[in-house]
């Protein structure tokens, strides 16, 4: 596939699906960094948080006690990177007793059907 980035840039729809809880493993953090990197390539970018990945969004994280960086810090940078499509799976949220007021940023809540449509609409889906 030819790619002339100036005259004819290829723009694809990327969806990053964050599913891993913070701190127990490091992979979720590196995955968020990958998402921020994608923003630099000016692709159509969406972020979806589901399963234990929702815990990344929680406000009032205190990782200093375990010498870790705050997983929610890169999330707070989403808007400055032009990432405004941030979605949360309604089922995962209900299962964990979470509310949008618990999160560090504004999110769009998706039911299962809408979530399927979002995935169906993508060129590339990456999952942690």
């Amino acid at each position: 596939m030819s790619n002339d980035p100036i005259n004819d840039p290829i723009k694809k729809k990327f969806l990053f699906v964050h599913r891993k809880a913070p701190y127990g493993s490091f992979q979720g953090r590196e995955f968020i960094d990958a998402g921020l990197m994608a923003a630099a390539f000016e692709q159509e970018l969406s972020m979806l948080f589901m399963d234990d990945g929702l815990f990344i969004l929680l406000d009032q994280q205190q990782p200093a006690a375990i010498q870790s960086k705050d997983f929610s810090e890169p999330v707070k940078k989403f808007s400055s990177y032009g990432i405004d499509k941030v979605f949360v799976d309604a089922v995962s949220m209900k299962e964990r007793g979470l509310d949008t007021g618990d999160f560090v940023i504004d999110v769009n809540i998706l039911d299962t059907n809408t979530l399927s449509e979002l995935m169906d609409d993508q060129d590339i889906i990456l999952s942690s």
Partner: protein
Amino acid sequence: MIFSLSVTEAPYSHQASNSAYHFASAALDKGHGIYRVFFSGNGVLNGSDLCCPPKGEVNIISLWSELADKHDFELVICVAGALRRGILDADEAARQGKSASNLAKGFTISGLGQLIEAGIVSDRLINFG
């Protein structure tokens, strides 16, 4: 069709790298192309030249090196994950003041942008992990 693959789990603790390898081999056998395999997270450990599996066990690192050499595709290790986990090429070892480097033949160390770019220019990007 042009494929790129992403591997996010370590060898000898997860099947991801082996599955990706079998996928790549099968795709190439069918006449498809592989543009790049990107290793990130624990997947960077697939680039260690120091893995010594016992006789009778497959050496997945060597298999990747040979397949990439034969079919001329890229094996790229994520630099952020590599430095954290001790996978260094000679340049990085010198830069970090380390006594040795250990990047396996055929692998290169580069940034996460290589994963995104692979997704943009390939027909399919498939994640194994």
